[in-house]
């Protein structure tokens, strides 16, 4: 690193100038440091991690260099080397006059004499970065005494009231019973109470307290609860159904993780287990749970540059996202800050950061087969269904007529190519013609022929450059010999390459669909030539544009298929004997059923019908077998990276937890899964000072809109201080005591007097605490985007309560780079709860996105609540609102009939859980009479009362 300089000469002559008395640190040395070093290595800055104004730090040295002062050995001490470096660029200080020869000699003598630095002389004190409330063990706080002893219903209330009394504030009066019911129902399920819920509650109220807890029990048992609370969690882990970045491709198997979170919430999975499953669920059969590790945006292989630095940076970014996710979500720490330098505020060094990376350095952002019992069973089922499907396909082949390419028909009239004036219907009746070319799959059968090579030439397309998703060639034994893993090679006329979508190799990779296809580089033409490893007797070619049936463009409408074993090519099939597209019939089979005789027809139809049934069954059996939950391999070797730069690796690290918080460190050879297990155990522990506090705070935030710690992802020294530190500790203890039951915490909170307060303003209290952080009232807050949509659907009677599975579309595209066109009108699946929407990263829903709906780019610890005119336009004028207002009108009418004032009463009852006041009926009546009930519905959906927690 540093050149060791021969300084003896210099040392010798300067020694003469220095008095024989020994060097005193305070008198002789510190002034030199002060003059030359402290501006960069003192209290305000510690460049390269070196601080020279505090003994312990100075002797420890800087980040990259180790100890800079070696007592008794000045010539080896980096400090001396640096101030005497002969290269001006490397010499310290970098700017201005450096220490004189005499001063350097003083430093040398001081070090050689043992670098004596007396204790207690430092002018600065080191702040103890561990001296921070959240880094200390969770306390067992004493429940405070309060004056207003009839207000508290439980321990929570005592903590809250004690704090209010301290400020001379009093709690707001309780909300009325129905307001509480509406609040708690919205809060726990994200849906409003039904009319029946309200009337039953009012009836049960004569037992007072029991009625409240019965409601809470009912809500916590409802599957709607998990759908609501999982959203809070998904915000934090920035869950989405696309990969992000420029291509933003669909991540089609992400949803099993979303469904896992919903189920975990509904099952009240103990929080410690919930953590472990998300980090290492593969060890316990909870495969989908590890979707947590790979929720971030990621560059797919094709989007990463081919150069080494690009690839290393992409990998580092991918690992960084995992470490950040773990740090924010479970520990409330911004660990990622230490990627480039030691954390500025928290006791997290760059080495800590990379040691954390080392736990997850074997994780890849990929799909993985699920191995739960259920997944295994449906996998078996799908396999046998697919087998049956293959048998049917084989049997259907016999109905496919042989192709009669032009050369074989030289004497016949070439109807389809020459006689375009013949009308389409007449053509369709010409049974000698084969089925029209289909965008999904086409079969060309011919008499067995020996071939070493096969060429598929496109002569025309229905649009643009031709695209083929798979070209299969079958020998007489029925095996596809074109597939690349048999060694078949491909040449083409030229390719349009879009990485991971259109590539030459995809033409025979055995995978279907547009995203695994070949595209020519010329409009309307192109050819593909396959060369087999040996000669085969072949009899059939199958090909398609997109067998997933999403794309119909770029279809080879005219083509020829030729084979060769030596030099000569022979035409075996072409499109000249196929029906032209203008004559296409309704039949979508690869052969024309109408062409068959009666017996054949019957048989073919039977098989086709069975096939259709199988198709649906396979689809459902395939669901949930694969999840985007990461794959695990031998971990990368991880090094500390200077300034986070992958091109500048420093010392290697082993998996180890943040050194300030624990001493778990694993040997380098620890297997991948064991690494994650060790990490999970350390986090999911009652001893970890952060874990329970962070979660207790998230639960509290869910109920009040803001946590006891406002910065829910940052419990570090830069985060906000808790408004009620003792209460938070008590809640954390209670969470642990309850066996980490989240539902237990909900029950405590929503039944508390604190939660039951009204939202009533109090100018005196507001003048002290405008945001009601001390909870002198229930803080006013708007529903979140998802809740607004769900509530509108619930009220309009349109809500579809189907749970789980792939998300419904908010846009016409499920991923991709060419922009997202919003769907405006929703039916069926589109009327499910919004948590089941296919979440396109960074693309906010066209109507509800403006309500601060996170875009899954970064973690959202808490929803910001903004109010904008765009929200108003969306909620007033979107097709969604108008549709729902009309459905609402129909529902109201169906339930109460034609009497307008009854209708208004009922509308208020359903939408706002209350009867309208007299004035409200007076306002609404003429409008409903003149413009219809939908007008009232539209107004109600936009009303503040509908949009706010009561």
């Amino acid at each position: 690193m540093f050149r060791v300089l021969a300084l003896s000469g210099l040392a010798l002559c300067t020694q003469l100038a220095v008095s024989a008395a020994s060097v005193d640190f305070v008198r002789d040395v510190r002034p030199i440091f002060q003059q030359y070093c402290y501006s960069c290595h003192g209290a305000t800055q510690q460049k390269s991690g070196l601080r020279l104004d505090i003994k312990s730090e100075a002797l420890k040295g800087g980040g990259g260099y180790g100890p800079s002062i070696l007592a008794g050995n000045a010539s080896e001490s980096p400090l001396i080397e640096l101030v005497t470096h002969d290269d001006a660029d490397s010499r310290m200080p970098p700017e201005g006059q450096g220490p004189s020869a005499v001063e350097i000699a003083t430093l040398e003598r001081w070090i050689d004499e043992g670098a004596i630095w007396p204790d207690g002389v430092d002018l600065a004190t080191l702040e103890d970065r561990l001296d921070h409330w959240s880094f200390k063990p969770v306390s067992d706080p004493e429940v405070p005494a309060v004056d207003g002893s009839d207000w508290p219903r439980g321990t929570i209330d005592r903590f809250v009231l004690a704090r209010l009394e301290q400020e001379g504030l009093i709690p707001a009066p309780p909300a009325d019973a129905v307001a509480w019911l509406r609040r708690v129902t919205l809060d726990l399920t994200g849906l409003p109470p039904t009319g029946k819920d309200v009337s039953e509650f009012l009836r049960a109220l004569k037992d007072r307290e029991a009625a409240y807890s019965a409601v809470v029990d009912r809500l916590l048992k409802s599957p709607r609860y998990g759908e609501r609370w999982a959203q809070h969690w998904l915000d934090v882990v920035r869950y989405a159904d696309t990969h992000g970045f420029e291509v933003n491709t669909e991540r089609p198997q992400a949803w099993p993780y979303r469904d896992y979170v919903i189920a975990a919430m509904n099952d009240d999975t103990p929080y410690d287990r919930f953590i472990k499953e998300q980090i290492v669920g593969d060890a316990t059969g909870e495969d989908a749970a590890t979707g947590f590790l790979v929720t971030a945006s990621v560059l797919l292989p094709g989007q990463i540059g081919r150069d080494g630095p690009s690839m290393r940076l992409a990998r580092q970014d991918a690992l960084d996202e995992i470490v950040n996710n773990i740090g924010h979500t479970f520990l409330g720490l911004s660990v990622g800050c230490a990627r480039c330098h030691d954390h500025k505020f928290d006791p997290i060094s760059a080495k800590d950061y990379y040691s954390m990376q080392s736990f997850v350095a074997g994780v890849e952002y990929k799909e993985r087969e699920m191995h739960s019992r259920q997944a295994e069973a449906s996998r078996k089922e799908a396999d046998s269904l697919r087998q049956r499907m293959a048998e049917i396909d084989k049997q259907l082949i016999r109905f496919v007529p042989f192709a009669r390419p032009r050369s074989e028909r030289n004497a016949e009239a070439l109807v389809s190519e020459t006689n375009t004036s013949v009308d389409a219907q007449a053509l369709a009746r010409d049974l000698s013609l084969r089925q029209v070319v289909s965008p999904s799959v086409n079969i060309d059968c011919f008499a067995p022929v020996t071939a070493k090579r096969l060429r598929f030439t496109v002569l025309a397309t229905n649009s643009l450059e031709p695209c083929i998703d798979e070209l299969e060639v079958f020998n007489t034994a029925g095996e596809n010999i074109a597939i690349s893993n048999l060694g078949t090679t491909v040449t083409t006329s030229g390719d349009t390459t879009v990485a991971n979508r259109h590539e030459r190799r995809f033409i025979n990779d055995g995978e279907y669909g547009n995203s695994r296809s070949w595209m020519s580089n010329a409009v309307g033409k192109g050819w593909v030539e396959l060369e087999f490893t040996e000669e085969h007797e072949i009899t059939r070619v199958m090909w398609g544009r997109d067998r997933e049936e999403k794309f119909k463009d770029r279809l080879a409408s005219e083509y020829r298929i030729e084979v060769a074993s030596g030099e000569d090519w022979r035409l075996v099939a072409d499109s000249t004997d196929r029906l032209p597209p203008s004559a296409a019939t309704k039949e979508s089979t690869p052969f024309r059923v109408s062409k068959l005789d009666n017996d054949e027809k019957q048989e073919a139809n039977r098989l086709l019908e069975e096939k259709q049934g199988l198709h649906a069954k396979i689809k459902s059996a395939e669901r949930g077998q694969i999840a985007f939950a990461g794959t695990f391999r031998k971990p990368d070797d991880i090094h500390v990276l200077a300034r986070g730069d992958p091109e500048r690796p420093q010392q290697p690290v082993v998996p180890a937890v943040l050194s300030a918080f624990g001493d778990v460190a694993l040997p380098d050879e620890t297997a991948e899964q064991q690494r994650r297990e060790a990490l999970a155990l350390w986090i999911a522990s009652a001893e970890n000072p952060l874990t329970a506090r962070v979660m207790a705070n998230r639960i509290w935030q869910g109920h009040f809109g803001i946590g006891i710690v406002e910065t829910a992802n940052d419990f570090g020294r830069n985060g906000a201080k808790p408004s009620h530190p003792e209460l938070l500790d008590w809640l954390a203890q209670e969470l642990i005591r309850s066996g980490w039951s989240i539902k237990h915490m909900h029950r405590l909170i929503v039944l508390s007097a604190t939660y039951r307060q009204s939202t009533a303003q109090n100018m005196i209290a507001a003048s002290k605490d405008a945001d009601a952080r001390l909870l002198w009232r229930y803080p006013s807050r708007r529903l979140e985007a998802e809740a607004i949509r769900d509530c509108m659907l619930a009220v309009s009677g349109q809500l579809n309560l189907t749970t789980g599975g792939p998300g419904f579309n908010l846009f016409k595209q499920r991923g991709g780079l060419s922009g997202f066109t919003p769907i405006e009108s929703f039916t069926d699946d589109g009327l499910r709860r919004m948590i089941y929407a296919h979440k396109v990263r960074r693309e906010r829903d066209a109507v509800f996105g403006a309500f601060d709906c996170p875009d899954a780019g970064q973690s959202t610890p808490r929803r910001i609540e903004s109010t904008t005119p765009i929200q108003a336009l969306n909620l007033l004028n979107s097709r969604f609102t108008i549709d729902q207002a009309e459905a609402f009108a129909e529902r109201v009418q169906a339930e109460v009939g034609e009497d307008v004032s009854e209708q208004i009463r009922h509308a208020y009852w359903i939408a706002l859980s209350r009867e309208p006041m007299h004035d409200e009926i007076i306002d609404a009546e003429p409008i409903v009479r003149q413009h219809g009930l939908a007008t009232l519905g539209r107004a109600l959906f936009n009303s503040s009362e509908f949009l706010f927690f009561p």
Partner: protein
Amino acid sequence: MLSRRSFLADSATALGSIALVNLLGTDRLLANRPNIQPDRPFAPRESHHLAKAKNVVVIFCAGAVSQLETWDYKPELIKHDGQPLKDGPAVTFQGPAGNLARPQYRFRQRGQTGKWVSDLIPHLAELTDDIAFIHSLTSKSNTHGPAENFLSTGTPLDGFPSLGAWVSYALGSENQNLPAYVAIPDPRGVPQNGSNNWGPGFLPAAFQGTPLSSKEAIRHLSPPRVTAESDLAARTLLQRMNERHLQQNPGDFKLAARIASYELAARMQLSVPEITNLDTEPAHILKSYGADDESNPIRAAFARNCILARRLIESGVRFVQLFNGAYASGGELNWDGHNKLKEQYDKHAAVLDQPTAALITDMKSRGLLDETLIVWCTEFGRMPFFQKGAKGRDHNPDGFTCWLTGAGVKPGVSHGSTDALGQKAVEDVQPLYDFNATILHLLGLDHERLTFEHNGIERRLTNVEGHVIREILSA
């Protein structure tokens, strides 16, 4: 009973001030924050220092415009055409490197300054006397997605606030009847990363860019299937409901803000169609932009977007982001000239050149450039050599050109330079952080003070970097 009007009037003063009262010592979080009135999120706000520019038009060329075919004249590259680059990289972003390739267009000297600019962009080339070029920019990524994020949001990652969001968050807007920040997508489609380029990230959604173009108006300006009478009836009813609700919950700021947002929306419904209606533009204006020339419909559509940009700025909109070029398409729809650079650039420049030049000239002649900054930018540059077996250049984040003109910008300067072949910035190297810091500076904002706390970090547009490029500021 408290009337809504008086409440709103009071709220700005009484409640507005107590909103800052905080018992919990989190003032640190508020110290740097603009004071945003919940009922008037777009109200104009004070800048940190005296602003040279009040508004901005950012012309964003997606796909990475080659500096070597446009603004960065490299005679040495002409000399070494066809030769291999000694000690050059063997493999770049898309694959193996080929030989050095001369600029595909002829360069000439222009204007008083004699600036060398290529014939690719003859109209823009005429404006060089007013422009400050930065030839030595560098990006943190050589991949379009992260690099466009970096240009638009100051970080290569997804989900951070865009420059326009930061600016409207800091400064609000002069016009309360239009969005503070408008993003105008290219007629050919959205840029790479789509709306992340104008997203709010973790800032309040109020500050996101509203997409609007001459082709597509703001969504949901009017309801489907509802007559004007019943529309009015619904709004009247809604207003009564909300006012009554506010009366029952006196002093609730959020409820007052909601009512205000509906009023603002109503005004927007009137002013947006007005601003997008270009029928009032005289024929000579349409002609000067190329908006009347239907022989090139893409250029005509982009030209209309340029006119729209001017009209928005005239109306006091704070930040307009005008996109030229769409998503990844093998260079067909944007500036990503990997394979057929010349063929594709001929088409793209025809779209960009005349309308953009007309926009600047038109704004200048109307005096709008006294208060408006115009930024021309692209996410990175391109390599001096062709890709092996191709007639195009690969991605190059190590040295590229963007420029500024208008309010606060020193005219006719060229700052920084790349090496003799135009591969790497060597003199006055300016990471894009500096570019963004400079834009904020011109708007009166200190990039180190414009912050927002998110996940434990006081986030800035410039992260922990950024130096204002003073050499290109006017005195």
